[in-house]
């Protein structure tokens, strides 16, 4: 019997908003899909294409980057830089044949535990539907 596909998703969360939002999801006992593994960074602007593409190349089925809402960045404008870099990376992933919808950028504040859970659960569902990262699929065959 074929085993049910469970994706491996990497989530880069900014320390000030999104990581705190994830903590809040936990402390209010909201169920969150375990397929996402959290990596804490200080700011979403730290997450560049190196980290995202490496994750995909090493077999991540999806990558979520989450930062503070526009205007609320702890470092004033970091999330705007993250957004710009992300827009560019989306185009690059297309060129590399990497399926741009495997990467997502979201804004989650420290008070949005429920939103964190919704975003992660939805992203996990979307990725599950898409199936495994084609790079790992190819390497398995």
């Amino acid at each position: 019997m074929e085993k049910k596909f469970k994706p491996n998703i990497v989530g880069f969360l900014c320390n000030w908003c999104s990581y705190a939002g994830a903590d809040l999801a936990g402390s209010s006992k909201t169920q969150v899909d375990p397929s996402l593994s959290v990596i804490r960074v200080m700011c979403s602007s730290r997450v560049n294409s190196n980290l995202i593409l490496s994750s995909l190349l090493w077999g991540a089925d999806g990558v979520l980057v989450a930062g503070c809402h526009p205007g609320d960045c702890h470092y004033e404008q970091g999330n705007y830089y993250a957004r710009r870099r992300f827009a560019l990376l989306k185009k690059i992933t297309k060129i590399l044949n990497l399926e741009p919808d495997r990467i997502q950028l979201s804004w989650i504040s420290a008070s949005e535990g429920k939103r964190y859970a919704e975003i992660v659960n939805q992203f996990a569902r979307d990725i599950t539907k898409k199936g495994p990262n084609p790079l790992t699929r190819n390497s398995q065959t």
Partner: protein
Amino acid sequence: MNKNIGVYVCECGPNIPERIDVDKVVQEMSSMDEVKTVKKFNLMCSNDGKKFLKEEIEKQKLSHVVVAACSPKDHEKTFMSVCQESGLNPYLFQLVNIREQCAWMIPDKEEATSKAVKYIRAGIHRVLYHNPLKKKEIEINTDVLVIGGGLSGIEAALSLAGPKRKVHIIEKTDSLGGMAADLSQVLPHQGSKMDLIKKKVEQLESSEFVNINTFSQVKEVRGFLGNFEAVINTHSGNGGVEEKEIKIGAVIVATGFNLFDLKKNPIYGYGEADNVLNATEFEDMINSEKILLKSGKKPKSVALVHCAGRKEQGYCSKVCCLYNLKFAHYLRDHHPDIEVKELVIDWCLPHKQDQSYFEEAKDKGVDFIRMDELLKTKSTGDQIQIEFKTNDKSHSVSVDMAVVAPAMVPSEDTTKLADILNIPLDKSGFFKELHEMLDPVSTPMEGIYLTGCALGPKNIHESLTQSHATSGKIFSTLVPGRKIEPEVKVSEIKEDLCTGCQTCLSVCFYGAITTDSFKGVSVVNEAICRGCGNCVGSCPSGAIRSKHFTYPQLYQEVLDALR
């Protein structure tokens, strides 16, 4: 270096074992090569727990420590200080969050357990790449530079000098007091009198802790919180400029405002029609106690026109409604033979006594006229005709004199000063606070604070309150005798990899990166850097490393997430 990693799983009372099989976690971790010891403990953050961890570090001669417990927001600092006390560099420690982001969000025990294993494994692999970072301490200067000798600046200087803090106050004109000193009286219903301002100036002038520099401007400010250097230019009487350098620990920007130039829009008739005055000119008339037309005759009627420049500037100046009411009260009280018509678009009466002040003006016979939009102000013979629109219909009033209330606009040197201080402006051209609600007097540059109308239109008591806030900020950050500890997890640039492209300079919001023009590379000032890592993300040659969030450290976490 010998690597002895100690892994400790905290049960957090019943919180973690309820959802995670802690024994299984311990067993899984024991099989890892890098790990010397794995133990569970009931409550690591308790005094017993801290004592236990300290003994473990010392006895087992641990080189790295991983604690799997709550969120780093809760107890990262707690365990880091235990490491420090035990002689282990606190940055050779990693706290793995298996409570909030594992036990509490994954109801299935088996799933939660394997997730915890995954996270702890990542923590172990990550901690191996940690570097022992060193805390730095920097000596501080506690003196303060106040830019602007208006009421906001005076109040800030006074509240600092009171408790014997040395203050340099810079004023570009010949005297202190600013715009408020020219007023005939501040709002009488709010209880303050003009001599209060005079008293404040006198108090400042007599203080031995205050160094007053009139005819002076700031030419340059370098440095960071606790260690600024400022170059001050003072114009001497014979046209020369004297330059001096001072050392300070913090800067307060209190540069105030200017008035909207009514000539910019012909609808106000200012400069065109005789007997159209702006509010300051009318203040002067009140001061001289002569309300007279150009012809030397006394006017029979005066119009007070609100909201000049509001539409052009895009904001309400907050104080004009009240000083127009002040004029109305004055005219009715001292010249009851003059008819007063007040042309109002919207009322802004935010403070507790303002409403009754307005009602009283009504009782005194002031004629309040609502307008939606001012159309034109022109002279017709001896009179001034003001045309306006209300409910889509045109109306007009004729008066002998019109007093127009101009909006408050940024003072003329604001842009230049923003550039000198490396702090941002908002879209109206005023200085921008770090956060309008949550950090209303700070700027992105630590140690540079804002007060009064430099931030936007404000009345006197709001300005004074902000000045107290800035001095409070300074008292709590720059304590005499105490050193400051800058952020440790900062960025660092490898000279041999840096191509000198300066991309990092343009993305750094704090101005922490400069160019070493001799070597042609960028350099991080660690005292200013806040460690966001934006420069790391932007560096095309990978020359920048953010300490404690390096690529190898994050890659380890990624690899374990995918394992």
